[in-house]
């Protein structure tokens, strides 16, 4: 679900080394300029490959870690219907992670290397998952705001220049719409309930609003995307996407009957957009650098899942090996 428009270096990517070659470079540049696609086995500049491995794997890690805050509520969903919906959503997040890992692997990096980068803390994932899900309304707000912000970020990626990434994103975006709508639907149900339930929704909105608009990453003036823009990976700037999200969300909040926790949020007729208040970037960087409320828990949960699954992975391989031997003997 969730790219964070922030490409944070997390160490050397280990794709196969290719000698830089002017003729190949010219062909690559021409393809990009014509709005064409680069495919897995095509020649590409090393920096393009590394940037993609970093961005796609950070995105994949985000999907996988993103299963945790919502998985937290599966056993406590208030009805069988909501439980089935939440299970399907969390399963989708796992699926999205797998599409993306597969896309990253086409660039010459192994799945284990990618996991290892996540589990060792070397690789980043979207900071939004380092916030806790405190009440049931959080599940609705994650769908509405967090997935809503993710969709804004991800739609332009469907047209990104790297074929396998672009195709994975098309599939993801198709499924993402369900995530946002189920979240809003859940909140509507709560808003039609008791005053306490309405308070829970407002409380969740208050906590998730700012982290959601931080998902678009630093302001354009503070972020360098020249190369990713030239390469056709990033197509719309952070601030433009953020503005689009805010503009779309105000009306949805109104219909829902909640307020957005920003006293400076108001319509600017001259710009034709909503103005909004200053973002607390200290908080953003604090969470990115590992000091959010849940950074330690999230990583510990992933490490535990990997370690607890080790015997299963090993046993399955051994089973496959024995079976292959038996079949060979029988033949």
């Amino acid at each position: 679900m969730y790219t964070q428009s922030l490409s944070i270096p997390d160490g050397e990517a280990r794709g196969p080394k290719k000698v830089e070659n002017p003729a190949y470079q010219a062909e690559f540049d021409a393809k990009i300029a014509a709005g064409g696609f680069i495919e897995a086995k095509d020649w590409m500049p090393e920096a393009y490959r590394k940037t993609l491995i970093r961005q796609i794997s950070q995105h994949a890690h985000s999907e996988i870690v993103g299963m945790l805050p919502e998985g937290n509520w599966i056993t406590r969903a208030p009805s069988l219907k909501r439980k089935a919906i939440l299970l399907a959503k969390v399963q989708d997040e796992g699926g999205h992670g797998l599409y993306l890992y597969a896309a990253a692997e086409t660039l010459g990096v192994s799945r284990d290397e990618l996991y290892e980068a996540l589990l060792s803390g070397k690789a980043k994932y979207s900071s939004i998952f380092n916030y806790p899900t405190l009440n049931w309304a959080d599940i609705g707000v994650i769908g509405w705001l967090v997935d809503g912000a993710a969709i804004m970020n991800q739609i332009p990626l469907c047209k990104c220049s790297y074929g396998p990434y672009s195709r994975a994103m098309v599939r993801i975006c198709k499924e993402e719409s369900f995530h946002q709508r189920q979240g809003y639907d859940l909140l509507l149900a709560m808003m039609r309930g008791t005053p306490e339930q309405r308070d829970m929704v407002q409380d969740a909105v208050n906590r998730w609003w700012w982290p959601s608009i931080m998902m678009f990453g630093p302001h354009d003036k503070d972020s360098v995307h020249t190369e990713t823009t030239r390469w056709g990976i990033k197509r719309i700037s952070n601030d433009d996407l953020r503005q689009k999200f805010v503009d779309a969300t105000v009306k949805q909040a109104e219909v829902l009957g909640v307020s957005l926790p920003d006293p400076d949020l108001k319509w600017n007729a001259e710009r034709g957009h909503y103005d909004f208040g200053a973002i607390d970037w200290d908080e953003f960087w604090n969470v990115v650098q590992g000091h959010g409320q849940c950074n330690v828990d999230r990583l510990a949960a992933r490490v535990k899942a990997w370690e607890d699954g080790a015997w299963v992975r090993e046993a399955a391989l051994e089973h496959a090996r024995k079976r292959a031997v038996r079949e060979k003997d029988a033949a």
Partner: protein
Amino acid sequence: MERKEWPLWEVFVRSRNGLDHKHCGSVHAPDAKLALQVARDVYTRRQEGVSIWVVKASDIVASDPDAKPELFDPAEDKIYRHPTFYTLPEEVDHM
């Protein structure tokens, strides 16, 4: 950390009868049976398919991207292979 990775399988899905199987991604699995199972869970959660093929990625033989000119350019100047090459009298042009 364990470094023994499950092999990679390419997944092809027929979305409905009458259409070709189409490549849709890849999965890691220890054997063919589990590869099918994983492919089903990862790529057909919303009735996207009626049939799945999985092929070990290492068994696929692909053309060399550097050989693209030799392989595909010769067809470029053979425009007579297309029906539009032939201009026929208007009365019979819809043949």
